């Protein structure tokens, strides 16, 4: 009997400590996305450069990286060099395409951002009242989604993409599938 008591007490203490440890690693500002593994909401939206509207459906069949940003966002500035590098690096890949969604922004602000920091060359959607962003469960910037050729969301990066992100996160996912 006394042994049963001791083991159950020990188990309870360990369980509580375990829960604490789990809780400590939980960042309350990071909202886990329920969208992983689901089909991304399609959109057809105006382009930042006033060109023809951009439709997500037209990109099906390739892996699509969708980067949500705004010229008002400081971390987007930090991230920008990597996006430039990634765009150049993947330009010749037939299975991968990048687009940007400039949200909660002004055209002039965004264009100035691209003029000063460089234009990565891929197409940019303009979403001034962040309807697309809300539709995609975005709550900050930058946020980046990786979609597989079927249009399913496979990964969400909250915060800037880091050096080597493509090799570390995107490639393993892409190689598993294709």
């Amino acid at each position, binding site marked *: *009997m006394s042994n049963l008591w001791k083991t159950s007490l020990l188990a309870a203490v360990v369980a509580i400590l375990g829960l604490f440890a789990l809780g400590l690693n939980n960042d*309350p*500002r990071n*909202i*886990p*996305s*329920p*969208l992983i593994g689901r089909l991304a909401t399609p959109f057809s939206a105006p382009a930042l450069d006033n060109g023809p509207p951009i439709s997500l459906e037209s990109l099906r069949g390739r892996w699509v990286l969708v980067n949500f940003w705004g010229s008002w966002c400081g971390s987007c500035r930090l991230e920008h060099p990597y996006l430039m590098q990634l765009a150049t690096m993947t330009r010749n890949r037939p299975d991968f395409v990048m687009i940007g969604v400039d949200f*909660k922004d002004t055209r002039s602000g965004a264009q100035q951002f691209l003029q000063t920091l460089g234009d990565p060359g891929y197409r940019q959607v303009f979403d001034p*009242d*962040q*309807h697309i962003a*809300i*539709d*995609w*469960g975005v*709550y*900050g910037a930058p946020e980046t989604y990786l979609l597989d050729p079927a249009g399913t969301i496979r990964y969400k990066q909250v915060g800037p993409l880091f050096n080597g992100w493509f090799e570390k996160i995107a490639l393993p996912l892409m190689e598993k599938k294709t």
Partner: protein
Amino acid sequence: MRLQSLMLACVFYMVFQGIALASEQKEDPTEASVRSIAQSLRCAVCQNQSVYESNSDLAKDMLGVIRTKVAKGETEGAIRDYFFQRYGDYIYLEPTTHGGNSMLWIGPFVALLVGGVALLSALKKWRRSPQAPSVPVKTDAFHQRLKEEMEKMDA
């Protein structure tokens, strides 16, 4: 003096009349349902405020989305679900009580029950133990042995 008090009375009357009028003003029914939805949703960037109370840009635009959807005739449940699909459990100020979350509701009571049963059985055991016969037997044996040894020494 009399004139002054009369004027004061007039001013009071006007003020209260104004308050009464303001409170009587009916709210647009669609706005009421917008408010009830927005108050149940948590602002994604300000943790402890509802979408209705928050001044953040995201919350304001969410409010705009809610307004458009209400105007389109979508039900409250459908709109709440729209945000739940995109932001998950986080988005409800009052978390759901089903699924894994139900453990948080039931767990404490289960723990209380288990603890109560354990305490009860422990109390029962403690009450019984003073009359347990094993202790006197032991001392008897001890005394017996002592007596024997003493006798041996005497002999």
